[in-house]
């Protein structure tokens, strides 16, 4: 069955890139523009995997992951955070918030799909 991935990012460029790479890899992609929107789409779409940015308006990625983990339905849904190589502190905070793994920006499609595969059954 086709897996659904929710991408949460306030940058249209980044959403488009994620969409392109993930669609090519055969995933169904749903999008949200910030953490608040992300939680809404999460409940509406029940994605199998979530990819989220950290810096977003209204609710950032940490808040989004915490909100997601607080939802019994999404306690065990894998979440990958988009981070930059140098953002070790953010990685650490994302981990504490319950992120499953991370994708280092800028990513190439192969790396992205590889990271997704590693957390998806």
């Amino acid at each position, binding site marked *: 069955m086709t897996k659904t991935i929710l991408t949460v990012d306030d940058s249209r460029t980044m959403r488009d890139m994620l969409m392109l790479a993930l669609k090519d890899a055969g995933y169904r992609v749903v999008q949200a523009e910030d953490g608040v929107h992300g939680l809404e789409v999460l409940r509406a779409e029940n994605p199998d995997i979530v990819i989220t940015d950290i810096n977003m308006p209204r609710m950032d990625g940490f808040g989004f992951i915490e909100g997601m983990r607080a939802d019994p339905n999404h306690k065990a849904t894998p979440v990958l955070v988009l981070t930059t190589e140098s953002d070790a*502190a953010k990685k650490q905070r994302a981990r504490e918030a319950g992120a499953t793994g991370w994708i280092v*920006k*800028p990513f190439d499609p192969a790396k992205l799909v590889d990271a997704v595969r590693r957390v998806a059954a």
Partner: protein
Amino acid sequence: MSDDPFETIKVTFFQECSELLGDLEANLLALETGDGDIETINAVFRAVHSVKGGAGAFGLEDLVRFAHVFETLMDELRSGRKDCDDVTIKTLLRASDVLADHIAAAQGTGAPVDAARSAGLVAELEVLTHGQAASVAPAPVVAADEDDFGFTPLTLDLADFGAPAGLPSLDLPPLGLPSLETASAAVATAGWRIVFRPHPRLYASANDVSLLLRELARLGPTSVELDDSGLPSLDALDAEDAHLIWTIELSGDVAEAAVRDVFDFVEMDCDLSITALGGAQPAVEASLPPLPVLDARPAEPEIDIAALLAKAAAPVEAPAPAPVVAAPAPVAPAAPPPAPAPVAPVAAAPKPVAPAAPAPTLAATPSAPAAVAPVTIRVDLDRVDRLINVVGELVIQQAMLAQRVMESGLARSSDIALGLEDLELLTRDIQDSVMAIRAQPVKSVFQRMPRLVREVADMTGKRVRLVTSGEDTEVDKTVVERLAEPITHMLRNAIDHGLENAEEREAAGKPAEGTVRLAALHRSGRIVIEIADDGKGINRPRVRGIAVARGLIAEDAVLTDDEVDNLIFLPGFSTAETVTDVSGRGVGMDVVKRSIQALGGRISISSVPGKGSTFTLSLPLTLAVLDGMVVSAADQTLVAPLSAIVESLTPRVEDIHYVGGHDAVIRFREEFVPLVDVGRVMGFRDDATPLAGGVVMIVETEAGSRAALLVDAINGQRQVVIKSLETHYRHVDGVSAATILGDGSVALILDIDALVIAGRRKSNRPELKMAS
């Protein structure tokens, strides 16, 4: 649009960049005026961060580098480590200008970035960030990041980097990795023994042991053993705790980095030891001290890692404590992963008994679904324009049909006539909706102006504050695009010619800082743009002197103040005695006026000496349709814009008076307004239109003055599709455009202001050669 999706995304990126730059500037200005808060700083940070992120994806290195330095300072500000003072904001504003230059250069639409200016700003930003310029200029990224983590324990961060392959040069002292690297590089290994004990955290972050085992199996043949001896009996089981230890033997010549990479995400959430198989190398122990979080769970039975390792180092053939699974190395990726012990999923599953209290944010969301950003699609402009054209034809066709029905003698109350009325309403609805697609806020133009004002202020050495309002006013896209140049020019003029310098201002009792207002508003079906300065106003004697010197007016011409002010719009007029850097670009106000007229707009000026000048642009909201009054004059059908018409009346002979013997005026509500004989002014007839049977329309010009247009008859009100006369013929004074009527004939659309001026010129001001 390109077929290459990557290129398409690049186009999106630059579109997004221009939006981000707009937000950036708006937010910085909010900070400058003191309207900003921490969220404003955050928004600035995000904008720069997004630019950097996208630029990184497209390998735009110069842009990334500059954005990074910018972002680093923003990070200092938003963390509160640095105060957001005036100096900082001014620097940030200039940095946003350079950022825009970098983006334009990357896009290929701008000149190459002024390297010295960029480097200078980088230095300034670094001084603000670090208190001094970073000494390691060639690698600002590293320098900045060190600072970034100044307040977090460094060892944790480094460990978190995980895969040594990514950062081989980083020293990780406690882990002894360097020695391992040399070892693994030198010796071809027979394989690896991996002992892996997940912590509860590993499951809590939705990692899955079976997936890790699957990844290992991709590297080579594996055999897996599970030690479930730590598993309590079912009634004592805490489903969220971790009890299992896995031992995996991976055979084949696999790099240690590849093995370690599998555990990249979970490295900190497990005890992990990776030992070379069959080699004499010492076991490399990579397990990490338990996290503080784990310490909070004393229930976890302690397992002696040393003992575990000893066990792991024992011969492979030795009977394992509980060989639940022994997968014989599935190499094909499609093969199912080695099944974990039946209990394992339970450990990973959410605990149903004690769901954590939902975060307040989550609970709050159902009530706020309206906050979702509007869904948009992007459509080629061509398609929209095609639609607009077709709808235009529909409007004409509908008008023709209505006329045919009228001519056929059907009663107005007949079903066909009534149905036609409904059709007309629908047509109008369609037209409005289509026009709305093209409508855009003028924000995109207004946003570019603060930078311009800063630059002109710098060049002229004047202190200027720009105040904008009405940025959300919507107008047709074409109008928006063509507004940028005239507004730019008029703002330049306002600062260069209008505003005095600080000393002059103070001497005149005004604040040292000059104010330029840029406002957009809707007024009677048109958009009005006002550019006002609080400077010295127009120097009328000087303007008059220049006009006389250039032969634009006769020396003894009698002009009102307004007429003098309007002289600056004449071709060849330039008030700058010396050509300055700012305004001396060979473009006079006449060019501004022409470009506004080309849009069907008008420009006017009002000025008060010592108080300042206001330029007012008035433009149609759309270039496609017009609500008009169809009139006839000397057998010609004409259309007057409905927005200009105040009322219409049948003239009485006793209301008409002649000033100076031949200038006709008409009494209208206790005032006299000039009477313009349309047929005569337009050159359709030589003799005057007879008053008897004629109709007068009272119109209001853009400047607010009134005039009366005398025509033969009013034929009705109609929406007409505007067709440019200049494109198909040439510019005709007094005419703004043409249209096709229901009967298929062409009608000219009157330019009221031009007509009134032409009427005045024709009758009583022969000496004033003022262009319309």
